[in-house]
């Protein structure tokens, strides 16, 4: 299956006069197996009693693992690794806005009960 990738010029950088980057089949398989492994890890950390460090820490660990998985999907499956800086800006700007919204709400809400 991966034989036909050999005769593709993979050295060509993706710029405006070329189409998208071709990713080797091996990378897709590696990313898929890593995603499944990370899913199993997420379940084990959340469910096994020895990994119960407290709800907040477990939430942070689960969200960090989810973010690693999201990173793998976006970088390799969605070819973000090979995209130009403008696309990267389109990815980071909404996340930044989301961060502002969450930060604002979490700064506001606990303050309301203060005297």
């Amino acid at each position: 299956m991966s034989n036909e990738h050999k005769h593709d010029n993979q050295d060509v950088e993706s710029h405006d006069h070329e189409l998208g980057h071709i990713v080797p089949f091996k990378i897709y398989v590696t990313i898929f197996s890593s995603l499944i492994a990370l899913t199993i890890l997420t379940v084990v950390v959340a469910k096994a009693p020895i990994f119960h460090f407290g709800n907040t820490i477990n939430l942070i660990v689960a969200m960090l693992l989810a973010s690693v998985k999201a990173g793998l999907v976006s970088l390799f499956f969605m070819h973000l690794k090979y995209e130009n800086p403008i696309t990267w800006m389109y990815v980071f700007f909404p996340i930044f806005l989301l961060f502002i919204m969450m930060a604002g709400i979490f700064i506001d809400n606990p303050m309301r009960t203060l005297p």
Partner: protein
Amino acid sequence: MSTPTTSNAIESGPPHVHHMDAPTAYHAAKLGMWLFLATEVLLFGGLFTAFALYRYVYFAEFQAASVNLDWRMGALNTAFLIFSSFTAALAMDAAQHGDNAKVRRNILITLACGVVFLVVKYFEYKGKVAYGLFPYGVKGFENFLFVGALCLAIGASGVVIFTHNAKLKIPTILASIALVVAFYFLKGSIATISFDLANLFPFGHAHHPETKMVFNSPEFNTAYKSYFGLYYCMTGLHALHVILGMGILFWVYLKALNNRFSANYYTPVELGALYWHLVDLIWIYLFPLLYLVG
């Protein structure tokens, strides 16, 4: 170059676009797709923010409510979505090599995974309704399905009105109206028949007798309603995205049937796959948040 030709001509090359050469059109389309994905991130981001805030405010109730979700079903669905994302990436890879048969095969696997995802999701919802955890029980669920059909119909009609494909407009709008009318009059029987079918299988709900209470009872307070309300909103909106993504991938499949894709034209496969990966990404965050840490 600037002569307008119909975009559904059967030829293995990029469609002609005004004032643009093919690579520019490709990059413009992809950038537009990423911009749309950014709006999707913000759409779900609002719900995630609401979930985070209410989890902080009603921490104990959220912990108690989340045991009513079966994490095994969530894990199964995660595996199916990750695998479908993998095959969507392979479809895109096949399109880059101009192999239309492989595009079709991978898209069919992706669509099958999408169907399995929705079936598993339906069993979960059935369990919630059966144990009285859905607002207004079966009646409420009927309306939930109707709102979903209405959203799909409005969305599909809205998209098709602004496309250049004149042949698709009237059939899609008629099909949307038919879908809404059918759901309005048949929503009762659709829910009942599908529940009778689903009751043949004994799974779908992690039933915890100690938390047994029903949605519209007094002890099911605002905190529990927040949890389940957010659960139905988030997973329901996500399921709507799965259905929409399947529709887009089916459209890509039809194009692959006509051998439309080649090494210098595969924009629809890439954009469809990007949308499907986003659906997968959102589920990657939803699964631990709703099923595991509560």
